[in-house]
């Protein structure tokens, strides 16, 4: 296979070389100058430029007609509707610039190709014209900037008083969700507290104590292995164990500080949170504004809700936020999209490793009654303080 491919390539190169050679010889016979463009070629290329421009415009119109917004459907959040409007305004404007400037460029390129006897017009500058096309774009851009900034302020400003607070926690390659419970407040957290029982690292007196004990055991165990006179280790693994021990000891010191500074009064705020393990559908209420907070465990991820036109990166070591108000329930959207399998989705939109393209979380928007019933069950049985976390399968 490789050998055949190689032969084909070599033969192709020889063929082109021979064709070129023949071509050069014949044009020499016909006394044609090989290096100067003749008028016939010039005209041909000028015509082709015009044709290309027409083709480009036609393909643009065709693609707008066929693909439009790429099948993504109407925006499903209040903010998304504003977004779509502003996007449309900008698209119309830039399409206009695209048609006019490309049109002028290719029209002139076609019209003013060199012809026998034609002479170019010596026209080095014109201050008025240049001022005009400095000023016009500046004015148009000012309008765009103002419209954009107004919307940006609305999108990134504080959420309304009735907004429900939610946290999403990302790691390779899934999201866990934390609903803020009755008090609509998220409890404190610290990554050092994360273990199998506490996947989001919530900080309560109990979780801190448990983690201090766990880490203490890990350190003892590691020390025991390092100091075990009967064990034989390679230099590399011995160094690795010592380094791991040093890391754990540093973490331990910081955990003790955390324990010392912890205010037990805050436990209640964390204990009424509903922690939902990774890969279970995020449930939202129709017409409810959400104030969402994001953390990441390992690398940067990006929480991208295409249907709600919302996105924010999830960054290890910091908390980011966004807000939106879904206003079309999943059921209604399925009717609109004419697809009874349609679902809202949360996609990862920052390169994060091998399964980046599979990192997702289904989102379901329920209307008020359905939501209230679902929420009552959560708050009764699944608060962080109350019980073990039940794993559910994804509701598709």
């Amino acid at each position, binding site marked *: 296979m490789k050998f055949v491919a190689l032969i084909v390539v070599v033969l192709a*190169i020889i063929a*082109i070389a021979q064709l*070129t050679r023949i071509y*050069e010889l014949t044009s020499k016979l016909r006394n044609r100058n090989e*290096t100067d463009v003749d008028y016939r*070629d010039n005209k041909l290329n*000028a015509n082709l*430029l015009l044709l*290309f*421009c027409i083709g480009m415009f036609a393909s643009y119109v065709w693609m707008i007609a066929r*693909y439009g917004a*790429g*099948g*993504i459907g109407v925006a499903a959040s209040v903010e998304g509707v504003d977004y779509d409007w*502003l996007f449309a305004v*900008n*698209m119309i404007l830039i399409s206009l610039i695209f048609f006019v*400037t*490309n049109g002028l*460029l290719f029209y*002139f*390129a076609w019209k*003013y190709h060199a012809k026998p006897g034609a*002479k*170019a017009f*010596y*026209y*080095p500058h014109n201050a008025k*014209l240049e001022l005009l*096309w*400095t000023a016009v774009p500046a004015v148009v*851009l000012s309008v*765009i*900037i103002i419209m*954009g*900034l107004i919307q*940006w302020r609305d999108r990134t400003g504080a959420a309304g008083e009735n907004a429900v607070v939610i946290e999403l926690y990302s790691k*390779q390659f899934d999201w866990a969700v934390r609903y803020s419970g009755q008090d609509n407040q998220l409890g404190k957290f610290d990554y050092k507290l994360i273990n199998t029982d506490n996947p989001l690292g919530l900080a309560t007196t109990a979780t801190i104590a448990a983690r201090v004990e766990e880490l203490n055991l890990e350190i003892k165990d590691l020390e025991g292995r390092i100091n075990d006179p009967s064990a034989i280790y390679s230099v590399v693994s011995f160094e690795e164990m010592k380094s791991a021990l040093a*890391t754990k000891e540093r*973490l331990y010191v*910081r955990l003790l500080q955390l324990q010392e500074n912890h205010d037990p009064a805050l436990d209640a705020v964390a204990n009424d949170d509903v922690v939902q393990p990774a890969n279970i559908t995020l449930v939202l209420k129709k017409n409810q504004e959400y104030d969402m907070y994001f953390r990441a*465990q*390992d690398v940067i991820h*990006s929480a*991208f809700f295409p249907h709600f036109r919302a*996105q*924010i990166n999830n*960054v*290890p*070591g*910091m908390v980011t936020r966004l807000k939106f108000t879904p206003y079309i329930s999943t059921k209604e959207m399925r009717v609109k999209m004419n*697809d009874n399998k349609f679902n*809202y989705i949360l*996609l990862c*939109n*920052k390169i994060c490793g*091998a399964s*980046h*393209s599979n990192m997702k979380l289904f989102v379901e928007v329920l209307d008020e009654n359905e939501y209230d019933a679902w929420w009552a069950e959560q708050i009764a049985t699944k608060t962080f303080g109350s019980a073990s976390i039940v794993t559910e399968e994804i509701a*598709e």
Partner: protein
Amino acid sequence: MAASTHEHAHHEESFVSKYIFSQDHKMISKQFLLTAIVMGVIAMVLSTLFRIQLGWPEQSSDILHMFLGDRWAPNGILDRNMYLGLVTMHGTIMVFFLLTGGLSGTFSNLLIPLQIGARDMASGFLNMLSYWMFFISSVIMVVSLFVENGPAMSGWTVYPPLSALPQAVPGSGLGMTLWLVSMAIFIASSLLGSLNYIVTILNLRTKGMTMLRLPLTIWAFFVTAVLGVLSFPVLLSAVLLLVMDRTMGTSFYLSDIIVGGEMLDNTGGSPLLYQHLFWFLGHPEVYIVLLPALGLTSEIISTNARKPIFGYKAMITSLLGIGFLSFIVWAHHMYVTGMSPFLGSLFVFTTLLIAVPSAVKVFNYITTLWRSTAIYTPQMLFSVALVSTFITGGVTGIILADSALDIAVHDTYFVVAHFHVVMGLSAVFGMFAGVYHWFPKMYGRMMNLRIGYVHFWLTVISGYGVFFPMHFVGIAGAPRRYYDYSVYEGFDMNQFNIIMELNVIISIFAIVGLLAQGLFLFNFFYSIYRGPRAVQNPWRGNTLEWTTPVEHIHGNWPGALPVVHRWPYDYSKPGAEEDFILQTVPLAEGETEDH
């Protein structure tokens, strides 16, 4: 003393000092070009490999298997990690090695001494070092493709923590180390080159070559070099801090991380710090790539239109304006990274401002064509195409610069389409135009016109064919750097079908585009040896390089340096016999220099 200088000038150069460790700017320019062509071909092949995956996912491909073997494409199915590696290396090589090192290295080196009337660069030795560091960094970057765990896999921007943690992705091991080493050397090369360009332009202009008589190519190279000198050191510091985080246990970019079941004790660092440092280079970098291309086409359009470039001073002002503004727009890459939204709004303002000088340039090009007599050599066609891609790619920038609109298209294929058109296609078209135009100066022979035409038309059509439909993939919200779009099958089959349909179209054009470059390569190498001999001034240009002999000589001009009497764009000047007037021709009596 005089005798010894005389002897020195005539000594026979050895093969090594003439072709390998040459200090002659013309030879160094050719070395840059050849290296860039090799790197460009590699980067394009890499992109075709992942386009095969995106167009026909889950299908076994003999081509993938042939290039990537059992390790990275078992049974002809591309490995998920290697997909990320291909994307990363394609971006890195294209941006830095082809369009920064290659484009500036080739044409700044060739044209700065020739067009300003200098015997050589200010420092031939530093110039040689610059090339060899570029060469070494290229080799290291290519070698990193072949290491056990694959090349860097965190995207060409190599954001930590992903790039800092080998536990997170295999490419962040040795592959990433080589990436960082290569970039550090590359930056040193770029700095040596840029400093040399700046010093040469400021100090070695021949008599009469005032700053306002410089060809626009030189102005573009000058601004580019200044941008490079001011911004690349910042990338170097970003790279060094990343090296420290990876090897010395520091926490510049790392905080509160658990990866691969291991809890790290890094605290207090910020991944956003890296992004700020990276984009402080990264955005000027866009113009480091673009401005030389614009400079080349300014020259080529004027020469081939047989008409002065319209608004010479406005072109210079807009170059300076773009150069200045490019330093205060970097955070528009970071609207949705968690950076303060207020900071974001400042960057919206500065970013959209940059559209003003860009618009001035476009309108000046268009007006230059108006009432011209355009001669469509391949370089002229590529230059017209560049203006077109600059417009088409530029307008989508208006959407991305607007933070409110960026929210839903950030990191989607809309961005990929935008920067490939405005920076990728434009810069590549500019580079092709430059090669076709100055090939006679570089090799003393002409390239074949007809093959050039076929190459142009296939390239421009496939270029548009790839990136035009890509905008629609992006408007649909399809994220970039996805191995495949199977995730869509789970929530919207209709949209999945649209994305796949577009991806197949894009991939077909990408393959056509790759094959078309075979024509260029053939034309290039064939013409070096077999092309017709060039005359001294084949395009009847005004600038000084066309007053040098066809055969390269050390020192460029056999006798005294030329003296300059006028600006470089006196084409079709009324009252002149010919439709061009060399810069060395004194002003006639009563003739004014009005531009």
